[in-house]
């Protein structure tokens, strides 16, 4: 069998992986979900034909979306994850013993169930007693504003279709209200190389609500351009000056990408991105 999966990153380029087999092809109430097994990157989760993560490189994304905010916050106890039904983000949060409660708000239960079945290494943390799973829309959940959190992590799909609202100022205002005094929000913010305008649109939406926004970068080979960004909003803590270095060093024995130096350097933006942020929108 000579099967090849292609994800187009633009009309003129894409990523192509040879695959061993299709493990699951399912239409959920929200999206098309496929699980493939590839030769180079192990098992892959696709939502609506786009790579969400692969077994081989998911650690980069999940470590960087979690450990950066959690090691800036002085004492993160309550963490909210919007999206992230695969459980990878929760798995990383659970490496921080000071965290007492994790709320996970995932709209698509089928994704979570499929990950529990086919990606036990990623989803293992979902069964932890600290984790409360809420199957509902993240935008509506935020609008209710019932809870207070130290950290809000938005581990969503791309800002097209249903996830678009997770990148808009109105949503960020609700996040702002839910965050405590030293609260931190972080969101995945697309590939600044592939789509710099989209990246700066997200950045500007965040900085229109929060006083300070900081974008940081990571290398994720199966995402467009292999060059990915996260954007963090912090009320008082500084993302590189206020790292809890001792904790970060200790944590580094459990991580494969994250360490305190990577943490710091991830916030250094190349010139073409700095200038993108100063362009008028």
């Amino acid at each position: 069998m000579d099967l090849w999966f292609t994800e187009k990153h633009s009309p003129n380029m894409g990523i192509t992986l040879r695959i061993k087999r299709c493990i699951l092809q399912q239409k959920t109430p929200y999206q098309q979900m496929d699980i493939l097994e590839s030769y180079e990157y192990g098992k892959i989760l696709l939502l609506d034909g786009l790579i969400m993560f692969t077994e081989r490189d998911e650690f980069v994304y999940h470590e960087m979306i979690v450990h950066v905010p959690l090691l800036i916050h002085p004492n993160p106890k309550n963490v909210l994850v919007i999206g992230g039904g695969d459980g990878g983000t929760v798995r990383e949060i659970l490496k921080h013993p000071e965290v007492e409660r994790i709320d996970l708000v995932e709209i698509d239960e089928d994704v979570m169930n499929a990950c529990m079945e086919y990606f036990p290494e990623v989803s293992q943390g979902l069964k932890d007693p600290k984790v409360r799973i809420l199957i509902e829309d993240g935008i509506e959940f935020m609008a209710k504003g019932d809870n207070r959190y130290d950290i809000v992590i938005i581990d969503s799909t791309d800002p097209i279709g249903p996830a678009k609202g997770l990148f808009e100022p109105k949503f960020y205002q609700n996040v702002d209200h839910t965050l405590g005094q030293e609260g931190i929000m972080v969101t995945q913010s697309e590939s600044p190389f592939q789509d710099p305008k989209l990246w700066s649109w997200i950045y500007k939406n965040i900085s229109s609500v929060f006083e300070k926004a900081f974008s940081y970068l990571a290398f994720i080979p199966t995402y467009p351009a292999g060059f990915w960004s996260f954007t963090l909003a912090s009320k008082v803590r500084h993302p590189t000056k206020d790292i809890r270095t001792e904790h970060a060093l200790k944590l580094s024995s459990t991580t494969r990408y994250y360490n305190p130096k990577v943490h710091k350097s991830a916030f250094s933006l190349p010139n073409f991105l700095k200038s993108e942020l100063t362009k008028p929108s």
Partner: protein
Amino acid sequence: MIRYFEKEPYAPVESSYEVEKVLFKIKTKFQEIEVIENSYFGKMLFLDGILQITERDEFFYHEMLTHVVMHAHPNPKRIVVIGGGDGGVVREVLKHHGVEKIYFVEIDEEVINVSKEFFPNVSCAVDDPRVEIKAMDGADFIKRCHTKVDVIIVDSTDIIGFARSLFSEDFFASIKKALSDEGFFVTHSESLHFHKDMVIEVQKTLRKVFPLVDLYATPIATYPGHWWTFAVGSKQLNPRELRRPFDIKTHYYDDEIHTQSFLTPKFYKKLLNKELPW
């Protein structure tokens, strides 16, 4: 988007098909069987990575492989089908009401089972009481065949691997022995575009055995080169002539297509003399 890239034996082109779903995959004693779903062609059957049939266009091949010799024969009663585990040829043969017996000789019984599950419209006739399934090598069956039969149809995979024995002089000689005096033999023989030398080789090998040998072709969208040929061997009757009225239901084959499908004598001569430039 997932695409299936087909291995094209001997062809300078490559085909690939968008995969809606991989429906089935199994490795048998003989080969790998795969079924995928494509939005245009419907279900598609692959053996060892090579496309065999699609739901949408299988009738071109099955009708043309079957009905030419079945109409050239005055009264075909006993038929042998070698290969064709999908059952498409058996379905076509049974459209002829005079048929009393079909020996359906398929080396890999799994192909029949897979077809029954995924291609019910192709395999629909394989359980007919007139059909006797023999899960064995076609060449062995013909060698041991002691009764005369009227028509022998070879519906094999490409002329590589284990199907190669079905194109040898030895095999053709035992075919001739098994045929009644008015009998016909037909086999597919690859594409005139990409496999011309193989087409010629099959014609020449047949000519060593049969007094009458001929060649006809038909367009098939999903086979490499498209201009797909069928080689006929006959003991005494000319296959270009219909000896019975055309009164069965078909999608493509009819009495006019029958006669038009054969290569013109001039062109045929050029082919065998290797005067064709491509």
